[in-house]
């Protein structure tokens, strides 16, 4: 039985049929007329064989519309991703929604916002918290840098820590041949990885990323490409134009995937944001992400291909009012549009800082959002007309009724962290704020939660793969 995640019934549509058609046609026109640069010789040959027009000198691929539409149909609309314990398998597609942390470069100092270079112990603890939370279904670890670990080894080490300390499906990261070790580690532990790719908009895929497509499709792992436009910088300043460009970039790699392995599992991931026109940094907390994300989810639901949205970070540097409001607004709106995956729990500032304390607070937001998904049940029993007749006006009340005992917990979400005490009780309890309580919750998880350990031989196999990777990079002069 896979993890069931949340169910988003009746997702909200933000685009009209007419708008969907126009964005789709614009996407096809971009692919057919402007084309996409794919910096990989073998990929160009493969795509040429499939019917694309190639300018080999410019490495430019123009995609005929029939091929794009054929490949869209080849992608499965739902599929399973295998975890090391079957209870953690994921079943993508339909109305299922999963939540996922996407990590941050460094740990954030919760008071000052300072960036703290982490240790492998910090990563291990973060993964244990991820493993413990029911609201989190899959992950990408927490940090990208560890004291004492050579930079080239940080990603393989991150994957190893993730696999050893959680049964939840993990995402890989491509580049510098890292996917070689990640694939090996996943295979050694009898599970699959989500094959994440990062694009270089506008309309360009780098060599290392495309090499990863070959490696992932060879072992038939699901592909998870994010393109990551910054509107007004690497894509048009308009949401509609950025949607079309984003679609074109994802579909170019989708075609390659489906030509290499028809039916390869594919999750279309949005990672686009407005460009901050003062600093030049992408604005992950911007409210426009809600609009674009909702539209993106609707487009890919229309294609019947699983879709991921990713605007659950903030532009604030500390977990304050700005951070929480940006995250909550984007989470509520985008999740109601029916994505199958939503990133990135635990993030504070952009994808640069992260904290397990924020992760547990995000998990509470997901619980609240899930309550909204569940909607309002309208039946004779919930309308309770008979009960209203029975209780009547004051001094009648509902507190002692069986109906209340049966229904209130179904109707009310009970928060773990949010403060609902009276003022006097709150003072008596130490006048703590939510961050204080979240810190305590993290400590409590770390002292009680024990992830299912890997069998000894598999743990050894992972260590051997790390040694092999070290030797590989050393030989290449990269360590």
């Amino acid at each position, binding site marked *: 039985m896979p993890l069931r995640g949340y169910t988003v019934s009746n997702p909200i549509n933000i685009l009209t049929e007419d708008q969907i058609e126009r964005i789709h046609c614009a996407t096809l026109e971009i692919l057919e007329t402007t084309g996409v640069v794919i*910096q990989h010789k073998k990929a160009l040959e493969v795509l040429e064989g499939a019917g694309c027009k190639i300018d080999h000198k410019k490495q430019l691929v123009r995609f005929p519309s029939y091929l794009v539409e054929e490949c869209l149909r080849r992608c499965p609309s739902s599929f399973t991703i295998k975890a090391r314990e079957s209870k953690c398998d994921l079943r993508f597609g339909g109305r299922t929604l999963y939540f996922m942390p996407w990590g941050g470069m460094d740990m954030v100092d919760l008071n000052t916002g300072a960036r703290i270079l982490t240790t492998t112990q910090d990563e291990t603890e973060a993964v244990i918290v991820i493993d413990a939370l029911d609201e989190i279904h899959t992950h990408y670890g927490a940090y990208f840098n560890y004291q004492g670990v050579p930079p080239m080894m940080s990603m393989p080490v991150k994957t190893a820590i993730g696999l050893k300390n959680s049964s939840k499906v993990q995402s890989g990261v491509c580049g510098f041949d890292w996917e070689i070790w990640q694939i090996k580690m996943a295979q050694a532990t009898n599970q699959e990885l989500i094959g994440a790719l990062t694009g*270089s908009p506008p309309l360009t895929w780098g060599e290392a990323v495309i090499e990863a497509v070959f490696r992932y499709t060879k072992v038939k792992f699901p592909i998870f490409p994010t393109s990551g436009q910054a509107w007004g910088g690497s894509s048009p300043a308009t949401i509609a134009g950025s949607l079309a460009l984003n679609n074109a970039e994802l579909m170019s790699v989708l075609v390659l995937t489906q030509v290499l392995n028809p039916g390869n599992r594919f999750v279309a991931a949005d990672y686009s944001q407005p460009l901050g026109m003062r600093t*030049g940094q992408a604005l992950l907390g911007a409210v426009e992400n809600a609009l674009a994300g909702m539209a993106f989810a609707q487009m890919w639901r229309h294609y019947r291909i699983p879709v991921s949205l990713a605007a659950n970070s903030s532009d604030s540097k500390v977990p304050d009012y700005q951070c929480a409001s940006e995250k909550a607004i984007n989470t509520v709106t985008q999740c109601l549009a029916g994505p199958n995956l939503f990133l990135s729990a635990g993030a504070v500032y952009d994808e640069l800082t992260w904290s397990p304390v924020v992760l547990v607070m995000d998990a509470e937001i997901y619980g609240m959002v899930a309550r909204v998904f569940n909607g309002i049940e309208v039946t004779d029993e919930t309308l309770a007309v008979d009960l209203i007749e029975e209780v009547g006006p004051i001094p009648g009340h509902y507190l002692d009724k069986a109906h209340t005992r049966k229904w209130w917990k179904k109707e009310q979400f009970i928060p773990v962290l949010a403060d609902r005490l009276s003022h006097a009780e709150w003072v008596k309890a130490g006048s703590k704020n939510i961050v204080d309580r979240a810190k305590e919750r993290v400590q409590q998880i770390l002292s009680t939660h024990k992830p299912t350990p890997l069998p000894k031989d598999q743990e050894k196999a992972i260590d051997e793969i790390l040694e092999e990777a070290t030797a590989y990079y050393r030989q290449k002069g990269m360590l």
Partner: protein
Amino acid sequence: MAAEVLEKLRQAILDYDAEGAARWANKAVEEKVDPIEAVNALTEAIRVVGDGFGKGELWLPDLVGAATAMKSAMPIIEKEILRTGKKRETLGNVVLGTVYGDIHDIGKNMVGSLLTANGFTVYDVGINITAAEFVEAVKKYQPDILAMSALMQMTAYEQVTVVEALKKEGIRDRVKIMVGGGAITQQFADMIGADGYEPSAPGAVSLAKKLMGIM
């Protein structure tokens, strides 16, 4: 006539008009306008835009638009400077590029625009630049500053390779190295032995000036 050409040149930058800037640069050469005065007109105009940006009245698209207009006029005027053997004033020469493995160029272009707007001469060597290519550019342009950009945390490490290559060639100390981009931290910059670090594009100008001992 010279005054009119210079005014048109200045206005083309203020109008973010790349085509007009090139046209009036050619006209300036044709009319034998002093190329140093032409450069000064361009620099003055872009400084106006830079100041507007600094005050928060103008935004990145304005700044980069003006820098692009300037970029289209500059080679024409520079050729004339070279021909006449005159000398152009600059705050400093900067070689700028995105490291190998990284093909992002927006951040780099912003930094280039801002440095140009503030009186630096920028040699933008492009994206996906290998350590060997950076070494070559340092030898060729003899810059005061080498500015490297990496958007992605993974490619930030490539900057280590560049610094090592410069050391190997014995030219590390000839340039000040500044690194930047969202993925980089002061700690990282210290680790690779960079002379300066700045996470955002606008701050790159003050950093460059500091490295040049101007402020």
